């Protein structure tokens, strides 16, 4: 098991190297001089030249890539073009906000999706089956940013039930000095119940909007895996020996259904992160998505590079974890495959 995980981890290294090369190549191919973007179009020539030296733009391309890679490994992505802040440090707080949002959305999608999928497989043609099909179609067709806006209008502006903006330390827990960007988790950890409640309220709308994407796929996958398992011999045996249906499903079927569903959930993370970029923009969520979009619009090179790299590293590593997890839950796969 450990050997398998190590082997997979080793395979990820060249992939991440290739990813970093592509990110660096893309960003350095952006049109325009980064120093003119940093200093403004009418900056004096000596200042521009000094900036070129500072950013190492006079060096050969490959050497610059080497410097970038060495920096990235130390999580040093340079300084923000406009605020001069440490890009890596800012990215860390943004990352925390994104993780909290993505986690909440995934949890919601997982709970609702497996429940709905199970129900619709047990009662095909029922209301849950119909709802599952509607969700599956809607999840792939309705733009998540539009859905977010509709929810803001209905629950935020018209009914005034829930906040739709203001995920900041000052708004969530005034008086609490947060040391991370995990506003919800840290409030819980510190026992600041009012702040945690406020954070939870702020999480609802964006998390529900974001959850629709994985929800569609998880529901469909659970339903089809469930139907497949229900047709197998061991289910007939379990039923024949008089086991209550609740136990047939809960103890036998669900465990086998879990395997494909875990895999699909992991694979959904890419679309979830993509959706997070859009959802964050709609809800002004101070996460990596809004940060990346802002940086792209301003051509803030160091931030674009760092955000792209971070998004991809997370995606690749989570897929790795899911793959290893997959081997962990399915004992049939535990014997090493012959090569």
């Amino acid at each position: 098991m450990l050997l398998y995980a190590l082997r997979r981890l080793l395979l990820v290294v060249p992939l991440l190297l290739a990813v970093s090369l592509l990110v660096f190549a893309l960003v350095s191919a952006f049109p325009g001089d980064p120093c003119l973007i940093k200093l403004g179009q009418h900056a004096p020539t000596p200042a521009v030249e000094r900036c070129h030296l500072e950013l190492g733009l006079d060096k050969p391309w490959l050497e610059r890539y080497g410097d970038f890679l060495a920096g990235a490994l130390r999580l040093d992505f340079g300084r923000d073009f406009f605020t001069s802040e440490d890009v890596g440090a800012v990215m860390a707080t943004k990352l925390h906000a994104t993780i909290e949002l993505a986690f909440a959305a995934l949890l919601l999608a997982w709970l609702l999706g497996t429940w709905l999928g199970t129900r619709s497989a047990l009662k095909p043609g029922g209301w849950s089956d119909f709802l599952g099909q509607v969700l599956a179609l809607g999840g792939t067709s309705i733009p998540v940013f539009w859905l977010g806006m509709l929810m803001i209008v209905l629950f935020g502006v018209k009914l005034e039930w829930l906040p739709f903006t203001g995920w900041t330390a000052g708004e969530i827990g005034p008086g609490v000095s947060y040391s991370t960007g995990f506003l919800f988790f840290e409030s819980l950890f510190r026992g600041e119940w009012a702040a945690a409640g406020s954070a939870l309220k702020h999480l609802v709308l964006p998390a529900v909007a974001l959850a629709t994407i994985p929800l569609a796929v998880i529901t469909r996958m659970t339903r089809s895996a469930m139907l497949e398992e229900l047709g197998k011999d061991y289910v007939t045996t379990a039923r024949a020996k008089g086991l209550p249906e609740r136990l047939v499903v809960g103890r036998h079927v669900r465990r086998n259904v879990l395997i494909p569903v875990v895999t699909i959930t992991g694979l959904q993370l890419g679309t979830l992160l993509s959706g997070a970029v859009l959802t964050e923009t709609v809800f002004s969520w101070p996460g990596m998505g809004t940060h990346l979009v802002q940086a792209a619009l301003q051509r803030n090179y160091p931030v674009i590079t760092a955000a792209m790299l971070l998004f991809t590293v997370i995606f690749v590593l989570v897929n790795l974890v899911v793959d290893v997890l997959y081997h962990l839950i399915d004992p049939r796969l535990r014997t090493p495959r012959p090569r």
Partner: protein
Amino acid sequence: MSARRPLLKRLLRDRGARVGLVLVLLVVLMAAVADLAPWGPKQRDGGLGEELRTPPSATHWLGTDSAGYDVFSRVLHGARLSLLTGLLAVVLSLAVGVPAGLAAGWCGGRVDGLLMRLTDVLLAFPSVVLAIAIATLFERESARSTFERVLPVIVAVSVVSVPSVARQVRASVLQVRPLEYITAARALGYPTSRILLRHVLPNCLAPILVLSTLGVGSAILTAAGLNFLGLGPEARVPEWGVMLSGAKSQITTAEQWLVLPPGLAIAATVLGFNLLGDGLRRALDPRSR
């Protein structure tokens, strides 16, 4: 030609496909009649400031937005841009993905290894993240026409979908390659290009057709998202994502209904292509015949 008729018949017997076809035809109709719309896409109406925004009325069927543009006319013109975006993005991704998939599946070995590692790298990115970078890469300050302004987003969307096309084509080629009729064609001494184009490719068409139809929908969705983020054309251009981005700033005001028309248009279009693609998959699947 006779082989196609049963396909169309099977397609029309499918309820989902019928709904999808109607929705797609509706969008095509919207795009076709856009020039007959009561107002031009860049024609402003009314006075200044607050007076610019008017609720739906007989002159402005869906009202006007904060810049005084007629929303109904802009939604019609948006259909044109969305269809152009979706179709062009799919054509571009096919133009790269099909040859790459053919080469990988047919040649195998190092070519296959190299091409598949390349798709691995592209698939390692969350699609929107990669698309943002590519759209930024191709953006030009000097872009004048509307087409030049939407092109970076179209290219970005097509690059993102190349890997799935290439992998699908490769998988189909691998299925066909060991079959006897291919061995026969090789034994007859046909040149590789002829075998690939006349014998291998036609047998890969079914999955490509399904993937392309679904691809138009997802291309329109991703492109609308990028335009919404502000990476596409500026606010004057009648594009659904751009219109939503404008509506976002009105969300707490009385004009919040501006959110509805462009969003509904995107959802209906994407739903249409998704239903049609799923229907095609069922109609083309030999097991369901």
